[in-house]
C-alpha cells in the first residue's frame, strides 16, 4: 500500500468503500483508507499505540507476538499519530451493500472503542473502526 493510494476518496462511483484492512487481537478489522496517511514498517516509529489497546480489545499476547506488526500513520487535525496493527495489511474495496450499521443491542453493549459498523464477506466479518473516534473515547 503506498501513500499515494490512500490520498484518493474512500468511496467510489462503483459503490465501494476503500479501506485499509488489518488484524487486531486476531480479529479482521479495517479503517477508511482516507484516514490513513501511510503504512510504515514497525521499526520506524517508537511512539505508537497498539491497536488492541486503542480499541479496548482484550490483550491477545500470543497473537501480537506471532503476527508481524506494522504501523499505520493516521491523519488527524491535531497531528498525525501512529497505530501498530498486525498483518496482513491490505488496501481493499468493500462493496457498500456488504457494509452494515451495528445492530441496536450491539451498539448498547459493545465495549469496543471506535467500532462503527461491520462488513460481511466470504471471509466472514470485518470490524469497521474509526481510530479518531476511539482516541476521543
Amino acid at each position: 500500500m503506498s501513500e499515494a493510494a490512500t490520498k484518493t476518496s474512500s468511496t467510489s462511483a462503483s459503490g465501494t468503500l476503500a479501506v485499509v484492512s488489518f488484524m487486531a487481537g486476531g480479529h479482521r478489522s479495517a479503517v477508511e483508507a482516507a484516514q490513513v496517511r501511510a503504512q510504515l514498517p514497525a521499526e520506524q516509529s517508537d511512539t505508537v499505540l497498539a491497536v488492541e489497546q486503542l480499541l479496548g480489545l482484550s490483550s491477545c499476547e500470543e497473537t501480537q507476538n506471532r503476527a508481524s506488526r506494522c504501523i499505520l500513520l493516521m491523519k488527524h487535525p491535531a497531528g498525525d499519530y501512529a497505530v501498530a496493527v498486525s498483518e496482513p495489511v491490505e488496501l481493499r474495496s468493500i462493496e457498500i451493500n456488504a457494509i452494515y450499521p451495528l445492530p441496536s443491542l450491539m451498539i448498547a453493549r459493545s465495549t469496543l472503542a471506535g467500532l462503527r459498523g461491520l462488513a460481511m464477506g466470504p471471509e466472514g466479518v470485518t470490524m469497521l473502526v474509526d481510530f479518531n473516534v476511539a482516541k476521543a473515547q
Partner: protein
Amino acid sequence: MEQEQSDLDKVLSLRRNATAEIVNVDEPIVKLVIFELDGEWFAFPGEAIAEIMPATEVYFVPGCPPSLEGVINVRGDIESVIRIAELLGKPAADPASTSSILRGQGGGMRSGIRVDRVVDVLDVMHSAIQTPPATLPEHLRRIVSGLIRHQDTPVVILDLNRLFEDYQHGLG
C-alpha cells in the same frame, strides 16, 4: 277475502324483522411461541417473533458480553444474536447442537434469540394466562408477563419489549 292478521302474526312479523343483537362471546386469543431452555418451557407472544430460523452461522464480534453471541446474516441484513439462557440464569445452549434462533422484535429493536428448541406455536385463550406469582426471582419479575400450562408443563411467558430494554441497559 283478506284475512285479518292475528296478534300472533303481528308478533311473529315483528320478530322476523327485528335485527337480533349479536353478542360477541369470543374470548381474545393470544398466539404463543413456546421454547425450551435447560429443560424448562418459556414463551414469547407470537406478535414479537418474526421468524423461527433454522441452523444459521453466527459470526463472533469481540467486545460484547458473553450473552451476545454475535451477528447473523438475514437475507442481506444483519442482526445480533443473544443467548437468552444466560439472561435467565441458565446454562447456555451449545450453538453446535440442534438449538434454534428466534428472530424477535420489541421495544423498537430486533435481535435473534438463541433457544434450546422450539416446542410449539399455539393459540391460547387470554383468560388461560395466569398472573406471575409474587415468588418469582427478582431478575425475572420485570420480564415475566404470565404463566400457562401446556401439555401438563408450566410455561413462563416473557415480555420481549422489556427483555430487550433491560438487555440494552445491562441485563446479562
